[in-house]
């Protein structure tokens, strides 16, 4: 029988290690193995004769130890950028552990002498449990039910008679009410990176029809970087049934506003993300735009001036092959001394969408969808920084803050109409 137990034990241990390995890789399995070794060693330790400790004997070593440990936890958690509440949580759990170990070594309770003793103790037990549960539910963050009630009492979205900003606000409400924030962040707002960040991806660059189709048929096109089996099934397919036509239109109106005039769109699942600067599919489309072959930008051929192979065909046209080419001073009050290789995304975008005054570089952003203009810029960069020679991708820009997003509007970075 003993051999059976040993075999079952080995199978159980190996299964546990396998599970940890498949979840966390070799580090997980290593940690699991270490735990098993510690257990094995501790079982070999010859225990001291059990001795009851008084309260002061009990805390004599434990209290100073836990205070030092709490300090270490606090500092380490701070180093790892845990916000203050999590620092408090970890230290609180250290004290929970302290309480456990106090209880484990506690002196044997005195036997009850009368009914009054056990009644008292039972009441204390119930009171303690109730105090913990009531206390926890009272102290954890609360919401105001009135806020939800006000939301529930709002009439359903009806677009009739609403103007632009009101439609967009209604669309955001639809986005919020349908818990889209659970999987999709919008720049800094949102809950998780399960789906693409619709702000940094700049979903607003796409056409309304495309966005609508993505909502109704989410399995049709998978966002780059989200091709894994789990992501493919993540987006619910019932929004076509759940949303009214007005709600859907309002939602699309809101999503159309999600643009960033200062950065290239970002693709991929956090933390494996990249910008369009390094996206070969985007660059391939950008080449088509640049060479005048893209149907959606019919009439635009960058190569006419800048040259199909990067050799400018027209005097004054920017030579993309020279990474040290400086910005010109043609745009008054909007000049940068940085060479071409260091141009910020915002400068690329501005020059292409708004044009360069007094030159044949027209404000193409007034005519062509910006989605393709960004792609053309990604291609243009390859003349001085070929894709196959790059050793590293461009860093993903930080998520813009609320203030930055506000400033895009106040500083007039968005064009009108915004294509």
């Amino acid at each position: 029988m003993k051999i059976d137990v040993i075999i079952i034990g080995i199978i159980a241990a190996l299964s546990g290690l396998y599970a940890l390995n498949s979840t966390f890789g070799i580090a997980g399995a290593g940690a699991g193995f270490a735990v098993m070794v510690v257990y094995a060693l501790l079982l070999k330790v010859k225990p001291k004769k059990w001795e009851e400790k008084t309260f002061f004997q009990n805390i004599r070593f434990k209290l100073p130890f836990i205070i030092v440990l709490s300090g270490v936890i606090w500092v380490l958690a701070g180093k790892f950028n845990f916000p203050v509440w999590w620092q408090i949580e970890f230290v609180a759990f250290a004290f929970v552990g302290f309480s456990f170990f106090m209880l484990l070594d506690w002196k044997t309770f005195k036997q009850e002498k009368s009914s009054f003793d056990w009644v008292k103790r039972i009441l204390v037990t119930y009171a303690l449990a109730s105090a913990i549960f009531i206390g926890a539910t009272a102290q954890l963050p609360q919401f105001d039910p009135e806020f939800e009630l006000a939301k529930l009492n709002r009439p359903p979205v009806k677009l009739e008679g609403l103007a632009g900003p009101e439609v967009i606000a209604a669309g955001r409400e639809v986005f919020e009410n349908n818990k889209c924030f659970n999987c999709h962040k919008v720049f800094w707002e949102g809950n998780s990176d399960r789906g693409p960040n619709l702000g940094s991806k700049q979903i607003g660059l796409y056409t309304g029809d495309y966005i609508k189709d993505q909502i109704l048929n989410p399995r049709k096109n998978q966002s780059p970087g989200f091709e894994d089996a789990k992501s493919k099934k993540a987006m619910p397919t019932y929004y076509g049934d759940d949303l009214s036509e007005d709600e859907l239109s309002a939602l699309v109106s809101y999503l159309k506003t999600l643009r960033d005039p200062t950065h290239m769109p970002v693709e991929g699942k956090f933390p494996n993300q990249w910008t369009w600067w390094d996206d070969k599919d985007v660059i391939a489309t950008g080449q088509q735009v640049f060479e005048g072959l893209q149907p959606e930008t019919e009439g635009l051929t960058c190569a006419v001036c800048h040259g199909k192979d990067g050799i400018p065909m027209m005097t004054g046209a920017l030579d993309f092959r020279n990474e040290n080419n400086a910005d010109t001073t043609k745009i008054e009050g909007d000049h940068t001394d940085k060479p071409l290789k260091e141009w910020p995304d915002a400068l690329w975008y501005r020059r292409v969408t708004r044009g360069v005054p007094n030159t044949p570089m027209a404000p193409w952003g007034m005519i062509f969808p910006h989605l393709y203009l960004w792609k053309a810029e990604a291609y243009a960069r390859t003349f001085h920084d070929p894709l196959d020679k790059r050793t590293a991708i461009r860093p993903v820009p930080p998520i813009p803050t609320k203030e930055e997003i506000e400033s895009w509007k106040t500083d007039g970075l968005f064009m009108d109409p915004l294509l």
Partner: protein
Amino acid sequence: MMKQSRSPLKNIFFKTLLCLIFVYLLGHLTPFLSVSSNSIISSLSFQALAYAEEDDEEEDEDEEDEEDEEGGEESAEGEEEGEEEEDLSYLTDIGPAADHEFEEFSFMGFSNRKFTWFAAQLHILFASFILGCPMFVVIMEVMGARRTQGVRKAIILSNVFLGILIGVVIGITGEVIIGIHHGVLYGLWACAFGALIVSFLNYFHRLMGIRASAFVGALFGALISMALTPVEHYETSGVILAVVNGAVGGLLSNGIMFAKSDFKFERLAHEITKVIGICYSFTALTGGLFLFIMLVAYQDFITYLISSFPTLFMVAYPTLFILETVVMYIYVYSWDPLNKSNKKGRHIVTGVVLNVLGLSLLLALDGPTTFMQTPPKPLDQLLNISEWDRIANMAWMPLNYHRLVGNGTFGGYMVCIIGAYMYLWSEKKEEREYYDWVGYIGNLIGVAIMIPLPAMGYIFVREIYQYDATIGMYIMSDRESMFMLVQGLLVGTMFSVSNIYMWVSMKRIENAERFFPAMKFGFILIVISAAIWFTPRRFFATMLPEPGMNPDMVLPDNLAFLALMISKNTAAFFLVTVTFVNYIFYTIATKTGKVHYGKINPLGPYVLIFLGFADIWLMSWMGTIRELSRMNWHVYKVFKDVTPEKFAPSLAESGLQVTQIVWTFFILMTAIIWIGIKYPKTKKKETGPAQAAPQMAE
């Protein structure tokens, strides 16, 4: 005596009665038939009346279609009548009562919702007790019964019953964790048939060895389950699951069939049954209270719900309820008489039948409960589908599994409470020893059944996510996210306290100190795991910060993994593993050292009471989460809650309400345990009869 009881008259009478019941059931219990095929029931349906006004046009069209099919003459009449429409409103006019308006009721801080919440949860707590406890009471009765021929026959049945329960639990766990297609069916059939075949062979003394039983169980269980499970091609994982389940069935059967009877189990089972008897009345009382409150507080909705399940509420539920009541009282009151007349086997069979009826009742009522959560789609066809389709909605089976296991856990912790109370109320040394042992058994049952509980909860929420992710997000990331954090706190507390109880218990076992250093290490792992389980992604109570909340309290993206399921599952894995390892230490200690029952540290009973309170509080809490997850819908996206209390109550308010409910339950349970177990002992002591005698030999 026996020949007299088998008189032809009685046999004929019972056979006739059974035939009548069978015919009656065949004629009336037809949940598979569509509602539309049962014109009588559908035309009587309140639901049809409730929608009469809204669906006038559609119904007119339907009527016209029917008339067309029925023939030209009626059609012609219909056209003639169409010119001068007859006023048929008198058929639905209920008189001056139609103008009666139901108002929001409030009494001492209790509102419509809180009254309903209170009654519903109290009812569910008692129902869980009377459904959960009989499951292991019957197994305990088996463990305590002398292995007479009758008992051994009954054990075949009880082993199959246990095999079904265990097979379902292992199967569903395999289905969830490893993703084995039809894992639950493999588990169920393999374990049940493994148990059946091995029990039969054991009965005839053809298969005595435990290894041989495991082998036979694995072989036959796997083969039969593979034949019965509808899959196109067999997968290795499924076959392995079937083999494991068959082996488990075989092992259990052999172990139970040849176990040495221990009278302590018989006594414990009998005492719990006395409590079940009283709790049964409270289940009915609180059920009635719940219904009355619903009729006052949510009259429209309860009418809609009941009328959506006409066969269930008019036929199946009352039939099952009455049958269960009858069998339950037979089970309770025939204990001593059947013991005395050497018919223990029959009593065990009655216990199994009681369980089957109880589980059927659970399955039946889970139908409307889950219908409220996941009504079958498309929703505009809800009125046209059969009643059976409304019952067998997406969340039905997952909730059945969840409640089955949850009730078992609940029952285990209630045994802890009984053991702890009786330990404190006992003065005699033998009594204290016995109730100390009861506490140990209760904790064993509670923890053992609690281990697969997270997997059952997971499969339930997974189905909800698949049905409508919005509900899942509301629970996990929005207004109920802090509720789930409290759940994490409770689960961590329960595992910790269970382990503390084991620690306290081991102090009364000789030579158990050798495990203490390893157990202390386990406690460190428990605290770390509980901390990870408790770690939230953000520290505000909604998905997006609302006015007055601190939006900066969010984990940075690179640390967010700590709040994801991968970390939570690992924490759960460690909590379960450490608890399991400690139980192994405990078991080894009890087998290799003398256990001084009755000399447990007086802290022990209070730890058990704390544990029971925490479990029942958690159970009420999870019920609250499930109910609130429907948001402002009584039936999700079908029947809207338009009352002033349609919003989610705050965490603090919910915590207080749940605590009040659990206190009420505990006050009642304390009285029930006293009346059911302690008081009869006190009375016996006064009148001076002997202790309950062990059952007589057949």
